[in-house]
């Protein structure tokens, strides 16, 4: 049976169509979820896409975390549902306390869009098991508030527990502490990533096909997961 991967649309979500396309190219069935509907429609995994949910007003992700759908996602994630938050989705996961730390304004104060090399540090998560540890991948980054910050103890713990999923290589595009581009929760089912793997899934439109690995990973994870 084809895995069903939910993609949430908040008001102001922008990369929801791209995330759904990536899910489809990876071989799964994308299921569009609506911010106002707490029903997850039985999906096997969820992607919180990039964009400017609620205009990024107040603080990125701060309003989205209170959307009805998020209540269901937080509960399901604590129960092991694989959740990937990309860019704005990462911000929402931090606001929802599924992941520690916060994403703040890029240190250079500009929005920045470039093709970025990442090193996969943790290949054991639900979203990165298709990669080799240490593998370098090329993924577009594009954000205005992508600077990952946390207190030193949290950063130490993330590193000690192998929860830094990916780091920026060859230049840090936003000033993130310890070059952190992606992190995961303790169980490894929830991943937040600032760059956009959904923009690297077709040779025609992306700088590489490296992004596809995040989506095929979750399929692999689901096959291996107990029903």
């Amino acid at each position, binding site marked *: 049976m084809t895995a069903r991967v939910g993609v949430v649309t908040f*008001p*102001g979500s*922008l*990369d929801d*169509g*791209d995330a759904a*396309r990536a899910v489809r190219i990876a071989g799964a069935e994308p299921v569009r979820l609506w911010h106002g509907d707490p029903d997850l429609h039985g999906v096997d995994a969820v992607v919180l896409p*990039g*964009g*400017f949910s*609620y*205009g*990024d*007003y107040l603080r990125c992700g701060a309003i989205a975390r209170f959307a009805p759908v998020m209540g269901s996602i937080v509960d399901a994630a604590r129960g092991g549902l694989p959740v990937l938050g990309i860019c704005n989705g990462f911000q929402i996961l931090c606001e929802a306390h599924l992941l520690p730390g916060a994403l703040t304004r890029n*240190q*250079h*104060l*500009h*929005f*920045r*869009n*470039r093709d970025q090399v990442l090193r996969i540090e943790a290949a054991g998560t639900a979203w990165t098991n298709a990669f080799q540890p240490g593998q370098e991948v090329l993924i*577009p980054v*594009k954000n*205005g508030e992508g600077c990952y910050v946390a207190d030193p103890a949290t950063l130490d713990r993330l590193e000690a527990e192998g929860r830094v999923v990916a780091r920026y290589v060859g230049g840090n595009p936003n*000033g993130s502490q310890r070059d952190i581009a992606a992190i995961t929760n303790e169980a490894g089912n929830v991943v937040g990533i600032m760059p*956009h793997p*959904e*923009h690297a899934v*077709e040779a*025609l*439109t*992306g700088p590489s096909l490296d992004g596809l690995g995040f989506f095929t990973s979750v399929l692999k994870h689901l096959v291996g997961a107990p029903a």
Partner: protein
Amino acid sequence: MTTHPDPALRETPGVVPQAGPADDWALGVDTVPRAAGTPEELQPYAELGLRDDEYDRIRHILGRRPTQAELAMYSIMWSEHCSYKSSKVHLRQFGEKAPPSDRLLAGIGENAGVVQVSDELAVTFKVESHNHPSFVEPYQGAATGVGGIVRDILAMGARPVAVMDPLRFGAADHPDTARVLPGVVAGVGGYGNCLGLPNIGGEVVFDPCYQGNPLVNALCLGVLPVDRLQKKDATGPGNVVVLMGAKTGRDGIGGVSVLASATFDEGSEQRRPSVQVGDPFMEKLLIEACLELYDAELVVGIQDLGGAGLTCALTETAASAGTGMRVWLERVPLREPSMEPHEILASESQERMLLVVSPDKLEAVLKTAEKWGVLATAIGEVTAPSPDGQPGRLLITWRDQMVVDVPPGSLVDDGPVYARPMREPADLILLQADRAETLPRPSDPDALRETLLRMIASPNLADKTWVTEQYDRYVLGNTVLAQPEDSGVIRIDERTGLGVALSVDGNGRYARLDPYHGTKLALAEAYRNVAVTGAKPIAVTNCLNFGSPEDPGVMWQFAEAVRGLADGCLELGIPVTGGNVSFYNQTGAAAIHPTPVVGVLGVLDDVAERVPMGFVPRPAGDHDQLFLLGETHVELSGSEWAWVTHEHLGGIPPQVDLARERQLAELLAEAARVGHLSSAHDLSDGGLAQSLVESSLRRGVGARVVLPEHFAGGSMPFVFLFSESAGRVLVSVPRGHEKAFTALCAERGVPWEFIGVTDPAAGALEVHGQFRIGLDELREAHTATLPRLFGGAEAARVEVEATRTGTTTVLPATAEQPIDVDPAEVAAEPIAQAGAAPAEAATEANTAAEAGDEATASADVAEAPVADEAPADTAEAPADEAPADVADSTADAAEATSDPDGSVTATGDPEQRPAPDQH
């Protein structure tokens, strides 16, 4: 909010509520009955930019004096930017000379032209200006420029899918450029990124002539199923008029502020911001809501609100259907409850659309709006034309008082039209005689090498990544090519691979030297930029940026430019589908270079066949062959080289032969289709040298170039590398394809020359017998300029790092701090940085800033920007210009680009927008 739908009125919309004139002023509004009873009352029409004869004409149309609200409406609808009164007589050529096209679903006069590209799909695109607001308030001016053009595209029934932004600034090292550019770029990015539209190209040009008048043009591309095309007509008496989107505030009403009634307190002046403020989040919701309404076939007509706000939307939708309208103005949701009727009608608050909805669909419409969290309010209804066959009337009440009773067509179609006097500028002959071909040229290898490095680092030719990486080019996942490629290419059908290519180009220097041919050159360049991707060019849009039309010299330039574009499109066989005019881009008596910006759209049947600009990496031992297509002449006048190295502008721009451009385009499309091309790159500013460098750096693949024999010796190698002859393209051809390719060139009559090979292993660009420069050195020269000039934020980063981590001792950076960061990057703020930098930048980049004079002049401008640029007194217009009666003449092609919805808003329109401090 007081809503007062009087059922009796709804059924008999012609009835005017009666109220004694004596009561009205107490209510603070000037009513229709009061206006009829007080014909002698003085009205500030001159301050609103209306001439005596224009005001008389309004009284004649109405048979009485206008009310305040009506006066406000006429003054903005008859302003230059809404009525196109100075340009109309010229723009009609776009219709008259239009080549036949069976692709055009909507053309001139609509919000944007719509072109069919397959059985099911059509695209719509248009470019507009937002120049003056962007000088006053760079971020919001640029942001709302994007917002405005996006709504134009949305109003046609299309989903906006990409934006582009041709930008022009003053000298790169001028302190005020460091204020304007970062704000404009952040505004374009801030709005477009938040809207989820990829930015796929544009221009960043520096020239002192734009110091007080930066040009911020914005283009949007949209895609729609052909059967989803929307109309703006308010048809169907009884249909409901719905205002959807943001609340209405006092944004952009500076122009009618003189109408503040006597009941206003003294502080009212401060309540009128005249630059609009954008909310891209609201616009994103508006887009989704509109598209859902279209798909469910819930709207009869739709119009965006841009320049002239509600006034324009109400009158245009009614006028185009010949119907009338009854509007209850107090139903309009307001941000500021104290707003008066004329302010509500003139407000240019962003993110609003006007819908015409049949009553049985109203509930569904409101529900859709609610789903997306967008306000939608029924504010009126469509009324029938009068029984005698005359168009209906627009009746607007405010709390039961009739404040407007006008024939809508009189505002839209019956505005004044001027055949303004034109005269070739007196200095043009001398300017043309001062040819750049006589300037000293580099003639030895060292000088040539140095010239190349200096040219690629000059602000206009330097890498623009500092700007473009502030834009999202990936969102929506259909961007096949984006800047710095010659064209942006967007896939519009994932199933078939169908796509479009878009390029916008302009060259103010060429147009200054010869507006007719300069405009054709801009058209040729945009056309060629589309063609090099392998696409077939099919349609044209334009944004015509000029000085004051009251200056006969400027008017002559304008007329020549329009004639050039219309002739050029006829020769190329592609129609102009829409556009925009921006006048009054001048500071005092000094106008900008005439700057026609031309956008060309092409179709690619399969975007997988698109040809990129960069040389292609090959395995060891393999390479591609380089060919130069077209002919190179000694054409240096108006060139980037003449400007950068001699601060020279004079002579006659390069020849343009559009028949040859057409042959070239056909060749490129065919060669791309059969796989002869690894890369193709247009030659324009900076000539072959620039193209070689760009194609090499794109993917880090060098080249070895051999000079053709007839370019050997003396300064001929220089001419070969830096001449700006038109109609040329640099292509790389895979081994094994050379014979077929050159045979195809011969067959198509396109001159070609073998000029070398790519050299994937060498990591250098070599011109045989002249120089060899490593790609690293080229890259350093090419990419350092903009960060050095505008990289203030890099310094901020250093600061933040120091403050936050406490691990370093770096102090807030200043140019004096000896820290191991490029000192030029370290200035704390753009202003401070630019203030310190000019000397260095002028030396290094040698941009021809007329340093001293320009700086002084512009400093004045900065202090009183609006007053300086907006010579508002049109009463002084030359007496010999005859206001023609245009009842007939506007009917057809004159509407060309007359698109009065004009999200263009404030662009240089003193009539609409006198500076608050001027009056």
